[in-house]
């Protein structure tokens, strides 16, 4: 199993390097939100993912939502969220966020015990709020730009930095280490379907609200990751000027 993951990781890294090289622009400080030099490839991947979602994932998620009471869905979310504890904590530490790492260790301890193996989330009620960290964010935190937009098959919107992050993080999830592969795959399926079920309405709304769904998702992904990397810091003066000046003239862009 480990060698399979090793090979997958290698594949991802090689693939990502190729994309980053193909996309040119090495080490640009601030990536424009729509930097997408391999758009035709990305659109094809996006279309492919849409087919998978439309024919397999969304129907499964709808069925799941129909069968499972909300409380169960919530508990399943909590359970898998709790299993992300090593990813979040390792990346808190890699970004020298000691307080956050303490919170996440505390969350894991509380939710695994009082929260019955993570099915409940008493930690949030005690003020131990969930942090959102991953290796892609860690790389961003230390100044690595995301690189060009990249749509991965099955995993969806990404960029070279986050694709490496995804591969690295897959090493620090809890369950693969002590559970047989069949169960891991089963658990992963439940995680994915349950996760998709939580956003059925939101995704439908975004599709309806967008004039160009591909561009809308690309832009939302880039904005969202940027905010996660800088932990919701305020926009710079220049960014505000670009976004909120009703009379844009010469200066910017």
């Amino acid at each position, binding site marked *: 199993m480990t060698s399979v993951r090793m090979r997958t990781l290698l594949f991802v890294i090689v693939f990502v390097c190729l994309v980053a090289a193909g996309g040119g622009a090495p080490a640009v400080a601030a990536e424009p*939100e*729509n930097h997408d030099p391999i758009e035709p490839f990305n659109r094809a991947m996006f279309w492919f993912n849409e087919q998978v979602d439309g024919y397999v994932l969304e129907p499964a998620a709808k069925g799941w939502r129909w069968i499972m009471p*909300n*409380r169960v869905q*919530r508990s399943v979310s909590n359970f898998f969220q709790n299993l992300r504890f090593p990813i979040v904590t390792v990346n808190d530490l890699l970004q020298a966020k000691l307080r956050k790492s303490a919170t996440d260790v505390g969350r894991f301890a509380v939710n695994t015990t009082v929260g019955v193996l993570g099915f*409940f*989330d*008493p930690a*949030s*009620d005690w003020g131990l709020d969930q942090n959102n960290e991953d290796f892609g964010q860690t790389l961003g935190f230390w100044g690595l730009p995301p690189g060009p937009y990249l749509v991965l098959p099955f995993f969806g919107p990404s960029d070279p930095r986050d694709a490496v992050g995804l591969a690295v993080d897959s090493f620090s999830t809890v369950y693969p280490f002590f559970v047989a592969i069949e169960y891991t795959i089963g658990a992963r399926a439940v995680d994915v379907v349950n996760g998709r079920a*939580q956003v059925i*309405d939101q995704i439908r*709304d975004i599709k*309806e*609200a*967008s*004039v*160009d769904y591909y*561009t*809308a998702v*690309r*832009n*939302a992904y880039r*904005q*969202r990751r*940027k*905010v*996660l990397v800088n932990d*919701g810091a*305020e*926009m710079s*003066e220049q960014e*505000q*000027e670009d*976004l*909120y*000046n*009703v009379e*844009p003239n010469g200066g910017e*862009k």
Partner: protein
Amino acid sequence: MSRNRLRRTSSRWLATAFALGIAAMPCRGVGAADSPRGTVQETADAVVAVLADKSLSTPQRRQKVEDIVYAHFDFETLSRLVLARNWKDLSPTQQQEFVSEFKQHLSMTYGKNVETYNNEKAVVTGDREEARGDWTVKTKIVRPGAEDILVDYRLRKEGNDWRMIDVIIEGVSLVANFRSQFQDIITKDGAARLITLLREKNAKGESLKAPGTGT
């Protein structure tokens, strides 16, 4: 579990609001809506009150929500920001058309949420002054049995009123998002095509009323 969190949050908010009220009293003898924070809180409260009113039919609720939102959003500024440098390439007629179609598009797509209201509450969590005298008011939508959603509003003063010019959901700015979509379409097919596209999309969905022109 979520009820606990809700109680905690609302009591914390009440304390903040109380402190803020005290702090605001001596220096400004003005109503809540004269501040950006007050405007957002008032708008959110009004919307939630309508949504929670079971005596209204869905179309009535939608109409009322639309009226409240229209009164507090500046759709002309929103449209100009979304079109950015392309705005001045449009003829005045096209500009009016765009504002009206975009307004209707937003109203239709987001107005649908009225039907799926599930006891969510909007809580103001902070505010700060921004460049060009704008204000950002931070809120979160507290959902029973689901994670909170962070929503920031950017407001700009027009005359005596504060009006919303952007909504930032979990860090994703509506203005930036639509700008990127529209930029692509305008570059490829021109502004006229974009207006037609919006009109077609609006015609397909059911809307409540013909949109007003301008703001």
